[in-house]
């Protein structure tokens, strides 16, 4: 017996299982990053006056701005890839998802440059509490980016076979992967001002 509402939405909830599942998972992720952001706020406001180091002392704002643009662009292409499937255009789907993946690569490359510059200057997580929270938050975010790229890469590559056999289910999968990717993007949009600018 197959599991109901795997593909088609349940009439009274209007959702298929995976879509509800990803929203719940993202709620849990909000709590995870929320707890870390709260820790950041508490550590910063609790620091004795004049002892807190600010992001602008260490961080490269132009590079981070570029990264913000890249991630926002990747969210747009992610939606385009899903929309292309809805329009039955598999070629465009693959193009847009490929671009999304490449944006992820670009983001990681810039992040790697930032990290290595920091290390080069002797800035490590143990140097001070700002750098500790900076490396923790961005490091966790990078892990999320990598996770999303693995999923996107799989669907652009070997996972795309499903399009021929179960197109509707495959389209759903892209939608779910997209919701996750937008969340990863959103986390960065919070990280950028709170770490780099404030």
């Amino acid at each position, binding site marked *: 017996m197959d599991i*109901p509402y795997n593909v088609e939405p349940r009439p009274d909830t209007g959702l298929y299982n995976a879509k509800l599942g990803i929203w719940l998972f993202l709620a849990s992720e909000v709590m995870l990053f929320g707890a870390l952001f709260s820790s950041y706020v508490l550590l910063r406001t609790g620091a004795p006056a004049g002892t807190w180091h600010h992001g602008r002392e260490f961080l490269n704002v132009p590079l981070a701005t570029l990264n913000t643009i890249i991630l926002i662009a990747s969210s747009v292409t992610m939606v385009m890839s899903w929309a292309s499937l809805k329009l039955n255009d598999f070629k465009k789907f693959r193009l847009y998802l490929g671009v999304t993946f490449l944006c992820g690569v670009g983001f990681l490359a810039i992040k790697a440059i930032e990290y290595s510059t920091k290390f080069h200057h002797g800035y490590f997580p143990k140097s001070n509490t700002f750098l500790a929270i900076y490396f923790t938050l961005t490091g966790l975010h990078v892990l999320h980016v990598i996770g999303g790229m693995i999923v996107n890469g799989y669907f652009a590559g070997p996972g795309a076979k499903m399009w021929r056999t179960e197109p509707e289910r495959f389209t759903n999968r892209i939608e779910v992967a997209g919701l996750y990717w937008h969340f990863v993007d959103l986390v960065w949009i919070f990280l950028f001002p709170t770490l780099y600018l404030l």
Partner: protein
Amino acid sequence: MALVDERAHGHHEAHHHEEPGFWTKYVFSQDHKVIGIQYGFTALIFLLFGFTLMMMMRWSLAYPNQPIPLVGGLFKATGGIIVPEFYNQLGAMHGTIMVFLGIVPLAVGAFGNYLVPLQIGAPDMAFPKLNMASYWSYFVGGVVMLASFFAPGGAAQSGWTSYPPLSDIAPSGQTMWLFGMLFLIISSVLGSTNFIVTIIQLRAPGLTWMRLPFFVWAQFVTSFLLLLAFPALQAAAILQMMDRLAHTSFFLPSGLVVSGQQLAVSGGGSPLLWQHLFWFLAHPEVYVLILPAFGIIAEVIANNTRKPLWGYRSMVWAITFLGFMSFIVWAHHMFMTGMGTIMSTFFQTTTMIISIPSVIVLTALIISLWGASIRYTVPMLFALAFLPMFAIGGLTGLPLGLAPTDIHLHDTYYVIGHFHYVVAPGTIFAMFAGIYYWFPKLTGRSMSTTLGHLHFWPSFLFINGIFMPMFIQGMAGVSRRLYDGGASYSHAQGVLHWNTFMSASAWLLGLAQIPFILNLFWSMWKGKKVGSNPWEATTLEWAATTSPPLAHGNFTVIPTAVRGPYDYSLPGAPQDFVPQHQEG
């Protein structure tokens, strides 16, 4: 309905081809029933192990600095004596194992997994692969925790709460504790997502929210607590891991002196931050421990009183409200931290408010007994014992929730007595009730009533023998953290004699579990064969499936619910129970 049937038949052939092999059938199974049983056995083993740690601790408390008999050979280095450092490991790991590896996996992983799909008329959980991943993540987490005993310096020893700065500078067992915890958190996030989606999406036709068995409601609220509270501990564990491995100072204040030397760290961190993050998880976690127990007790009581639950709707609203409130009471664990009177007032107020829904549930369950012709089955005995035991646990919590009284009682044996009354004769008795009650569902056989009585009565007696004197010791001010049970403190001398009494009770309680273990295995193969619905129950898991249920898909035809979950003793009905899917 028709749609489901059609698809079931359409895929019938496809399923016949893939007769699963041993590994996919019993080990890496994606079937919720097998995963439930895996969770159940693993959790029971961990419960026994955690209990054994406690029996060792009780030796040290009653006979400090004396070689322990039987297992003393395991630690020859100290001549079989439980030294304070080792006692700390036993304490930290007893708590961790009981809560995270024993009760929660048993209550949610085992009972929830096995029963929720059956009770809501679903062929399986919504995400079978995630379900399997959830179990194996739990398993790995458990193995890491156990392995930490062999780490240099031993297992975690900073209490189950892992308070920094002690935990930040503890030996490497603490790092393994954190890694193990990450696996357990992943397991719980996967599991709780799965439960919520299953309950929302896979309810059988006609099974509206107010027709759900109370057990399903309890699992539903529990899953939300797990989903939204555990990430706070995940965040805390990540930060502590950074402190330990990358030498950051999230939880290390400036100028911290360890063994006469100032610690060479940047400082500027806050030990209290850990406490906030930890209790943001751990208070909802308390309700994760008790809500599934409420669910089990409600099912057992409705069935054995042959009456509908009194106040089913108020019980549902009570636990929903309790779920929300459990997120804003955490700092009542922290009255002693000097967080200020405004904070304390806020958290005492919310704590007093959250006691109301628990009282509603308990009251509804007690009133359900009123005027019933009760069947005194073994599960019902455990359920009946649960009511006063949980009441003692709950009521003794009130003085701890009020800052003035908590100042005296904080960190004494009173606290240990309080929460053990909630989780041991409370939750664990509910788990036993559930095991005796649903055993025929899993096996088609019933457990022995004689052995059941041999299990219940001594357990009931001795468990009170352990925990009741703790209130006396606690009010006398005996600290909960001492390896010698207070022998070195003058204020403890007057209540010290209780230590041998409590320890003897603990070991006798251990002996009282032997009939249960025998019963469990003996009944699996030799127990009396019973029909599909031996308790004459109304809910779908009994009424609409065979015992044991079908291996694939649970139901031959997905039932349609036409009535509430507890239509017992309906006037005019031919029998004293009307199954949920049966037309009047």
